[in-house]
Structures are given as C-alpha cells and as structure tokens.
C-alpha cells in the first residue's frame, strides 16, 4: 500500500472517554521530545477540546520537568511511527486514495512522456537547424521552461554540496554543543533551535534553503531561538556564527 503504514491499534481512552494514563504519558513524552504532531489524531483531537485532559497533561509535565528526555534514545512509539501518518484511515478511504493516486501517476506519466517526445522533436529540429545555421543559438523551448512537479519535490530535498561539506566538518576549536535540532532531524513547522556556546556574546542564527537562499537571520544573546514560520517540505540548513567565526552548520528536514 502506498503512503500508509500498518498502525498498531492502541487503546488511548479510559471508560470515562478521557485519555488513560498511558495516553497522558505519551502526550507528555511528545512535549518533552517536541514530537506533538506525531501523536495519533484521536489524541490530538480529543485534547484540543478537553480542558480536563489538558490540565492532566500540564500537571504530569510539571512532574518530569527536571528529567532529561534524549532524542537520541529510541522511543517506543515515536521511533516506530516516524514515517506513518498519525491519522488512521478506514478501508474505503484507503481504496479511494489508492485509486486517485493511480490515476494521478498515470496522468503524470503520460504528460512526462509527451513532454519528452516534444522535447526530442524540437531538439532534433533545432540540431538540424543548427547544423544548417551554426550561428543560431539553441534557445529554451516552452517545454524546457515547464516545471515538472516531481522534479521540484526532488529538488527540495537535494543536498547543497557547499553546505554539506560544512555540516560534515567538525574541526573547529570551539564547537558548540547543539541541543536541537539534531542533524537530519525531521521537524514540523515550529522548530526550537537550542545550543550551548561558551563565553556568551551575540550569536547569529541563519536558516537557509538547500539552494543556499537565506530564509531567516537573527542575532541573539540567548541560546534558544523558536522559529514558527512556514517552511515547505524539504531539506534545510542552519548556521550559528559569532562575529566572523562560523561555529556550527546543521541540517534538518521539514515533512
């Protein structure tokens, strides 16, 4: 089945139709690990409307505030469901979705083929024109300019050679300990950037696209930066700098 994983059925609700103890604990785990939007839709939807459960979660969270929750340690739920959707879909919806996906793939495939055919016809004719008239430069055709949707999606996730080298390089004398996001982390729309840099001072945080476009730049004295802007799904990089010194380059994915 494309796009859906077999989500293990869990019982998250007690007899009183509120979250049971395990579901409350799972929500607290999600808050500590910053994976709230990976929770099951049923839990998110219920808590959205339920003051009682919100109160229970807030209280439970206060009890574990001193405890360290490491994103490096596998989580029994979030690690196993990292690639699954958080809503479970019934069989008719799945069949309908597969049917629609199949039709879309067929349409895209035939479009792609016709673009390729047109392109090769034009290329051939251009080549023969160029042979006859070498002074004529090959100019882009409409088909060259047309954007292939699949190519855009792939491009959004392709790596930047320059920034990748910096990510992989760790030979700096003062390497700040980055708390979050970890390299290659998959994040939702809101991202907490957190680090520990000795000697304080003003630090510059820059978020870049995989095409090295600067999307955001801030200068801070504190060691946290909460970003809540809209990022399209793709690969992003971020830099920590101080004066003229590059302290850290990291990368993360937005799903």
């Amino acid at each position, binding site marked *: 089945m494309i796009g859906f994983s077999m989500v293990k059925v*869990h019982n998250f609700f007690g007899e009183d139709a509120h979250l049971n*103890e*395990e579901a409350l604990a799972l929500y607290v785990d999600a808050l500590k690990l910053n994976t709230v939007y990976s929770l099951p839709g049923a839990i998110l939807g219920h808590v959205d409307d339920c003051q009682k459960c919100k*109160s229970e979660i*807030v*209280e439970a969270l206060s009890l574990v505030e001193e405890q360290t929750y490491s994103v490096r340690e596998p989580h029994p739920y979030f690690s196993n469901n990292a690639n699954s959707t958080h809503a479970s879909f019934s069989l008719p919806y799945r069949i309908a979705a597969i049917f629609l996906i199949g039709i879309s793939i067929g349409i895209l495939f035939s479009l792609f083929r016709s673009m390729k055919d047109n392109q090769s016809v034009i290329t051939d004719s251009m080549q023969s024109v160029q042979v006859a008239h070498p002074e004529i430069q090959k100019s882009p055709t409409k088909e060259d300019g047309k954007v292939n949707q699949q190519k855009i999606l792939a491009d959004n996730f392709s790596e930047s050679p320059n920034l990748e080298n910096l990510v992989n390089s760790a030979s700096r004398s003062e390497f700040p300990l980055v708390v979050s996001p970890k390299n290659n982390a998959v994040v939702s729309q809101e991202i907490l950037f957190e680090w520990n840099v000795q000697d304080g001072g003003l630090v510059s945080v820059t978020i870049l696209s995989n095409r090295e476009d600067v999307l955001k730049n*801030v200068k801070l004295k504190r060691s946290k930066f*909460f970003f809540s802007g*809209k990022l399209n799904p793709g690969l992003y990089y971020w830099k920590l700098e101080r004066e003229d010194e590059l302290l850290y380059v990291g990368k993360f994915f937005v799903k």
Partner: protein
Amino acid sequence: MTENDKDIGLLRSDPHALILKYQETVKIIVKKYILAGVFRASDFEDIVQEVNMALLAKIPAMQLQYNGTSLFKTYFSVIVRNICMKEHAKTNREVKIEQEDITGFIDRAHVEEKIVLEKEIQRFRAILSLYYRQRPKLLLCLKLRYRIPLTPEDINLWNPKCSFSDREMLLENFGSNFDRKDDVEIYKIITPVMNKNEKKSNSIDAVRKWTDSKISEIIQLLNGNPKKMNYNEDTLKTLVDDFFSPFLLEK
C-alpha cells in the same frame, strides 16, 4: 538495551525492584506536592509510604495496562501523581504553607527569578502545543488581544488561502502598532474575515467570547491544579510577549 527496555523487563519480572529503582521519583513528586500545599511537610515520610503501598497494590494493573507506548518513567510519574491526588482527596485538607517549615523541600537553585521565568515560558509554550486544530486561530487572537503587530507569516499560518485584499486589510489595520484600537474595533475588523475562513456567521461578540474563553483556559492551566500560581490576563502578557518575540534583537 535502553533504560526503558530495562524498566519494561523489570515490570514483568521484578516489579518490586522497579519500584525501588524509582524511589527518587516518588520522593520528588511528593516534595512537589508539599510545596504546592497538597500535603504537610511533616507528613512527607508517611505519604511516601502510602504511595509505595499503593504502587505495590497497583502492580498487577500496571502489568496489564502498560503496553509500552509511552516511556515507562513518564507513565510511572502519571501513576504516582494519581495516587497522590487520591491520597489528597482522602484527607482533603488545605495546608497553609506559612505554618509549615518547608525549607528542606525548596531547591535553592530554582528560586532565581530568571530561571523561574524561563520555566514559566516553557510551560506556556507547552500549553499552547495542546491546542491542535485551534492553534493558528488562537495565536492570531492572542496577538490581537495583546496588541502585538501581525506579520504576513501570522496570517499565512492562520489561513494560507486568505485573499490578497483581506491580507492587505489585516496588515494595514494590525501590521503595525494598534494600541489605540479598542477591542470592539478589532473584533469588528477581524470577525468577517474569520467567518469567511471558517465558513461561519459568528457575531463579533461570539469571536470575542471565544478569545476570552481560550485565555481563561490558558490561565487556568498555568495556575495549575492544585493551584500553584496566580496568573491573570495582565500577567499572562509577559509570557505572550516572550512567545512572539524570538525575532527581536537582544539589547
């Protein structure tokens, strides 16, 4: 094998050892409730004993109910909390903090104002995370209530399909300082746009009441149950300002 795997193993094979392992957690939680006035400081040892007795009795239920979805340490904390609340309901007496000597239960490192404020800000962020579908609208309404200028990103987050004219109108009215606008003016402007987005026909008053109710909910959650803090609409502003200020340069 992770720590969580070890805990699960102990729950199945040697639950008494597991309860021994988590004694520090039990004591920390009981201390928190002493500081909150739920229990007397002088009852600390007794309460810890009661909690342990209740945990021992609850082992079969825990073995049956815990299915490993959450981390065991979190699940255990929730269980201990519920036991403490039941214990509190049994005695049901409010403890006057000023009569108690709680000096042994205060962690001096956490009394500094800066640390307390940081913790409160984190709690506020966590509370906002509890609003899933309502969050984009809630953030917008909080900005409007506390007169924080809107950005194009705010409007995009709330309604990606907002028309160009509505977006321009909102930014014209709320994109810069709008302290002089009163609540009636603000809701008069925002209500038709919200109705368009939500395909509803709410009155101006209904939208205002929705915002008021959400702010009340947030204040209730911040104050805690049992009540530990005394937030109101005015003091909430500090947290709201901080939440929306990550792009400000530090002076």
